[in-house]
């Protein structure tokens, strides 16, 4: 430091010095534990298994095969390099038309082609993270709020609030009705805001839900549409897990609901999407804002300059997503593999008396460990979580980090590991439950001296063998938000 005198005004911004980045919450410890001691099947079999990262790693073999068979589809291969120049200089914020066309088509496909998406409404952003911030900047002023059903993805606190100055107000959901969002809960939350003189600009839903792994039924969606129209507030639907639905009931997108509802003001409806979960490409930062409001599309497009998708990646994505046959096969396989993984895990947990919320989508389970809490408090949940991290050596995510109103729930990610690791995780859980078995409150008990978990695979030969992902390429301790989206 120099001897130059400095006056006393603050050097950095308020945004830079507040906690709006949301990385100080206690579950940072889970990530530190993982980074210090990451599991590896042979090199570190007693390490911490990463189950806090909602990644889809089950279908890379399919993508890899497609890449090898389609060399002309990329700008860095011998076959495709003549396109390199045009792509490398392309920085138009409309995006490559072939990219927008392919994404629009893919989004339609994922919804069973029941709706059509217009390529001209596709706006790019820096992942869904960037998309959420962008739409918030378009729709709300500093001090305004969005209602959001709990539990919800922790990154929303950063994405919607940090630099925008917007607030999130919870719409509390309960286990008593499987955490479904009710009209009453919406009205209560809205009334509370009005009383506190906070302007509500919109409602944010995630469908399929993170962390619940459930989808919204048609009636609920209609109820939401009715609610936002009545209050004249926006409806932002994060459909980032749309293609991870692996079992009935089928996914119903907001885009279908508004097609049948003539009374809905389309200017209020917006969809957030990304390829990070459905395709398993979080590194490529492909975020999409799809709005039915022309002014929002226009404004959003201008804002997208702050986080465009790399043209090299746009080109790659355009190529992959335009291959109808490949995509059809991919979506089927992905669904089946997720279903299998889900079945094995839930079965394994059930065998040791652990129940999960009945779910049919997403890359995780919503695990009920209320029976293991010494008391129904957040402190007890945190204590249990520390035990799970330090003794059981699993980095799972405590419900409180998702703003869940009831202590004792944990999100467990199951699609970011291979079969072997999954078995190890289940074994550890089983052993832990055995040790603490008398604390469990459950209807049926499964005492087994020799814990053998039976796995019923639909197609055993289809189980993919993949190495577990090691600690990301950084020696620096990380928070969960280091991964752009968890």
């Amino acid at each position, binding site marked *: *430091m*120099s001897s*130059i*005198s400095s*006056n006393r005004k603050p*050097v*950095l*911004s308020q945004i*830079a010095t507040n906690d709006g*980045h949301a*990385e100080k919450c206690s579950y940072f410890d889970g990530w530190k534990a993982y980074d210090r001691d990451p599991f590896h099947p042979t090199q570190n079999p007693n390490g911490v298994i990463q189950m806090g990262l909602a990644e889809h*790693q089950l279908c*890379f073999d399919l993508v*890899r095969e497609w*890449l090898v068979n389609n*060399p002309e*589809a990329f700008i*860095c*291969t011998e076959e495709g390099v003549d396109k*390199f*120049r*045009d792509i*490398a*200089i*392309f*920085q*138009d*914020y409309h995006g490559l038309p072939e990219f927008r066309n392919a994404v629009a088509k893919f989004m339609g496909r994922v919804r069973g082609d029941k709706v059509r998406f217009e390529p001209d409404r596709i706006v790019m952003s*820096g*992942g869904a993270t*960037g998309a959420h911030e962008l739409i918030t*900047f*378009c*729709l*709300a*002023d500093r001090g305004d709020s969005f209602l959001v059903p709990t539990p919800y993805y922790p990154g929303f606190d*950063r994405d919607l609030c940090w*630099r925008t100055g917007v607030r999130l107000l919870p719409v509390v959901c309960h286990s008593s009705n499987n955490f479904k969002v009710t009209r009453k809960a919406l009205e209560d939350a809205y009334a509370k805001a009005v009383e506190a003189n906070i302007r509500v600009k919109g409602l944010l839903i995630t469908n399929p839900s993170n962390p619940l792994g459930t989808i919204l039924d048609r009636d609920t969606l209609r109820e939401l549409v009715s609610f936002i129209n009545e209050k004249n507030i926006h409806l932002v639907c994060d459909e980032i897990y749309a293609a991870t639905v692996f079992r009935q009931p089928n996914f119903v997108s907001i885009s279908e609901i508004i097609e049948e509802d003539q009374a809905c003001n389309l200017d*209020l409806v917006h969809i957030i999407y990304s390829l990070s979960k459905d395709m398993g490409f*979080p*590194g*490529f*930062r492909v975020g999409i804002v799809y709005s039915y409001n022309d*002014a929002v599309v226009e*404004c959003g497009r*201008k804002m997208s*300059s*702050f*986080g465009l998708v*790399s043209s*090299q*990646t746009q080109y*790659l994505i355009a190529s992959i997503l335009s291959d109808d046959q490949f995509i059809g096969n991919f979506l089927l396989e992905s669904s089946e593999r997720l279903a299998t993984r889900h079945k094995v895990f839930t079965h394994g947990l059930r065998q040791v008396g652990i129940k999960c919320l009945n779910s049919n989508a997403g890359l995780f389970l919503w695990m009920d460990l209320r029976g293991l809490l010494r008391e129904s408090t957040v402190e007890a949940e945190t204590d249990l979580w520390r035990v799970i991290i330090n003794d059981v050596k699993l980095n799972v995510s405590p419900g409180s980090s998702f703003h869940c109103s009831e202590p004792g729930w944990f999100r467990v990610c199951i699609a970011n590991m291979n079969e072997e690791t999954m078995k190890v995780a289940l074994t550890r859980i089983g052993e832990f439950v055995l040790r603490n078995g008398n604390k469990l409150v459950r209807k049926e008990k499964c005492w087994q001296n020799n814990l053998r978990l039976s796995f019923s695979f639909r197609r055993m030969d289809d189980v993919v063998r*993949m190495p577990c*992902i090691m600690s*990301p*390429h*950084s020696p620096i301790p990380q928070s969960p938000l280091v*991964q*752009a989206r968890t």
Partner: protein
Amino acid sequence: MEFASEKKQELLSKIARSDRHGEHSLYFDGWKAYDKNPFHPTQNPDGVIQMGLAENQLCFDLIEEWIKNNPTASICTSEGVGKFKDVANFQDYHGLLEFRQAVAKFMGMVRRGKAAFDPDRIVMSGGATGASETLMFCLADPGDAFLVPSPYYPAFNRDIRWRTGVQIIPVECHSSNNFHVTLAQMESAYTKAIEANINVKGVILTNPSNPLGITLSRETLTSLLSFTSRNNLHMVCDEIYSASVFNSPAFTSISEVMQETECNPDLVHIIYSLSKDMGLPGLRVGIIYSYNDQVVNCARKMSSFGLVSSQSQHLLASMLSDEVFIEKFLEQSSRRLAKRHSRFVKGLEQDRIHCLEGNAGLFLWMDLRHLMKESTFDAEMKLWRVILEDVKLNVSPGSSFHCPEPGFFRVCFANMDDHTVEVALKRIREFVSKGNENGDDKKLLQKKHRQNLNLRLSFTSRKCDEGLMSPHQRMSPHSPVPHSPLVRART
């Protein structure tokens, strides 16, 4: 009806409804004109030539060759596909270590080893566009201000101000001293701002300058750095054109000046990108390099809103760490820029059009004051429309860069091939000689020529004998929608 559309407007935020994205400025028309009628050497030889886009298209042959010879740099080749999964999965906001190391090394090479960069201070962003905005979010609150020498890059109005609420206070520079910013001017602007009760947080310099195409001298940088440190102001240096210097004086970076000047490093930050120096704007590689640990930390968290695609990180990590290639590239790029610059300047001089003596960047700062009937911005606009509609060149009027004096135009020269250069120069010649037939203009021309102008021609004939063949000028970008200049993330 009116009530309904007002109601519709209220659905959006104040930010969304404001004009601070900057796309309604008059020179939008230039882009419309280009889009409606883009030049093509054979298919549309009378079309508008794009000279408003600061792109470096002169060295793609080198990059394409490197790509062919390095198939493992791509995750999509059969040689590289083994890495696809790990790369596609990688979303850590620290960035790939090899990427940060390669960028740090590259930045050091561009500065000829006079400064070394720490990979752990490299923070990613969505292009330089994202970098500028993110830095503002870190350093300033809504209502705070930054001093920016004018003329300056138009999109700063969007990047610095739009969503952040930060203000820009222009520090006007003048042709009388070749638009060089002085300490006196800076201090005067600062004092005025303080008197007006504006909370000034810092200074933003673009070095080399856009639109002037000149590098700042060591003395200027030193005095400005001392000024900022003395007053506890941030010094933000946009060095996006640092490897686009093709003539002496050599580039001096703030990173060098810091080493020999008493200053507070916590106040110094560099914005960088590969869009200009490497000619890769589509890949959206923005970099924030701060000497302030807190800023690095905060900006890194914010980088989640605009990370560089891991696919591109992987490619560039490989390319930038190939020292042999990079040395060759930097040398060739410099050479080709010098040659192109020289050709243009010579061509313009033959028509008695002077440019500011520039040694960097991808453009010329052309003086057309003598072609204006009066020294007003109205006259500048009129002249610009003539250039656009009759001469069919999309150049950028000085007013769009907030130049305090009318009559200057930025002309980009590195985004086209040699043939297009000749066409452009020919059109300018024809335009000027047509003007000469008209008595008034001739008198004007003669008067200006007799005056003792400070603007001198620069002759850069370092490598005049080198022949250069480059591919045809790129056609209109892939979109039917009319564009504004800001459609390119950075122009």
